[in-house]
């Protein structure tokens, strides 16, 4: 049975979340198209007011790679917590042949090294994806964060 578009996008999001939650940061750039991609984390406050500055903005595949390279190489001192993404309310539509417009809600929980869990982030993905053979890749992922008073820091992408 050929999975539905909806199911394919859901699976994509689960794989994406797993790579981040399991700290396989080197895999993260592979979820984006290599030629042109755009990843932005924006506060809902700025988004709704039409203010352009993101919290985090990668406008090329190289910038996407750099975000995780700094984590992998230990250039940044960031808090060692375990994250877990919950991605729901997925909607996906094929807009043109080979192109998908999708969205989803997300919740990211954080658990510290002594086992205390709390909500880290809540927000929404707005995605433009490309179908490349049997894989989906992100051309654009806009991460709109409702919880934009950032708890401590935003080192690991969402």
């Amino acid at each position: 049975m050929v999975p539905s578009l909806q199911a394919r996008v859901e699976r994509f999001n689960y794989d994406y979340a797993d790579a981040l939650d399991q700290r396989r940061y080197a895999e993260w750039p592979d979820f984006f198209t290599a030629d042109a991609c755009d990843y932005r984390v924006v506060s809902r406050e700025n988004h709704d007011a039409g203010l352009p500055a993101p919290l985090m903005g990668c406008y090329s595949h190289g910038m996407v790679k750099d975000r995780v390279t700094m984590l992998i190489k230990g250039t940044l001192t960031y808090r060692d917590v375990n994250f877990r993404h919950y991605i729901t309310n997925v909607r996906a539509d094929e807009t043109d042949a080979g192109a998908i417009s999708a969205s989803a809600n997300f919740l990211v929980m954080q658990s510290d090294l002594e086992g205390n869990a709390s909500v880290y982030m809540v927000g929404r993905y707005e995605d433009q994806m490309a179908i490349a053979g049997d894989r989906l890749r992100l051309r654009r992922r806009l991460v709109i964060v409702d919880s934009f008073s950032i708890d401590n820091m935003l080192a690991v992408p969402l």
Partner: protein
Amino acid sequence: MNTQAHGAQPVWPAADFSRVPYEVFTDPRIYRLEMERLFRGPVWNYLAMECEIPQWGDYVTNWVGDTQVIVSRSRDGSIHAVENSCAHRGARLADKVRGNARRHVCPYHLWTYSLSGDLASVPFEKGHKGKGGMPPCFDKKDHGLRKLRIATHGGLVFGTYSDDTEPLPAYLGPHSLTQIDRLLMQRTPKVIGYLRQKIAGNWKLYNENVRDPYHASLLHLFQVSFGIQTPAMKGGIKLDKDGKNTWNHSILSDDDAQGLRDLDRDYAGSGKLMPDLQMHDPAMLEVPLDLQDGYKTTLLSMFPSLVVAQVDNTYAIRHLRPKGPDAVELHITYLGFEGDTDEDLHNRLLQVNLIGPAGYISMEDGEALRLVQLGLKTRHGEHSVLEMGGTGELHDTDYLSQEISIRGFWTHYHQLMGFEPAATEKV
């Protein structure tokens, strides 16, 4: 001294403030005193940028210490700040962060105030059909909102509760005035975004942090690796007359790269120094400085809670909003300028990656402060040590490995808090 009555009397064992009692970061009684004696005392509190409220009725909310205020523009162009709490039963009036309103109306009983905080009308003040209503002695003039006195400079709006606060230019001092002119008055700023960071540390730890160039090249390895601020750079600090306001700066020079390679031993074998690290897309590091004066980082810290920051080509207002003894929101207003080209804006959106809670060279401050707050929490009767750069008299420096500017903050803090005099002998 009613600090005694409150039971909050930390010991300051060094007259040069090279020792800071840890209780000032944890004791809720000291926190309450700070809200009264500092934020409602003889200081100018940052409230807004004028460009955020250009039209009649435009308002923003902000925090003076942990008290919320509404800052608005009247019909005649004047700016007013009032506490966001009804004179009747205390309800919050404006529940939006920013907006436009030509009067302040309490949602509970519709008491209505002018933008300057005067009570204009009370529903059923005279009762209904001759019954009820306020007593005859009730005078609306006695029931306005609590107001702050306003002063502006360089598009920055400040407010004070005290009649004794010195005029704003004298309070800011010559270095602040020069830097506000350089950063905010040569061009007309406009807001291109807000960034917020919840830091699990006392608000004064951030004041120490931003007055501390010693940490800048040790905690923030990204900026060392890519030559944004390194210990090899030229730079220094300048203090105002009270020590309360500080200007830290570092200057780009040609021999920085070699200087960096010679530094390895100073990193104590931490393995953290990576002078040969490359970026896959270094575009954000290749944006030319748009001021031609060679300053790579300038941090203007103004007592008690404002920083005007230039980090590389980013310009931002950083404001501290205390949330109790062990938490503070760092609120960042990220700036572009009128007349910015599309390329200028693109560059600002590239370089925002350097600052804020996800910034390559600033995200770590929140984490460092969290660790400090956790570490000092139970060290009652003990003190932090501020001797880097020398002890004794406060003075300007032409070097960056120093903590003198932090001692400047504490000197003024101690004075305004009315604590017992600091001892002349270290313990």
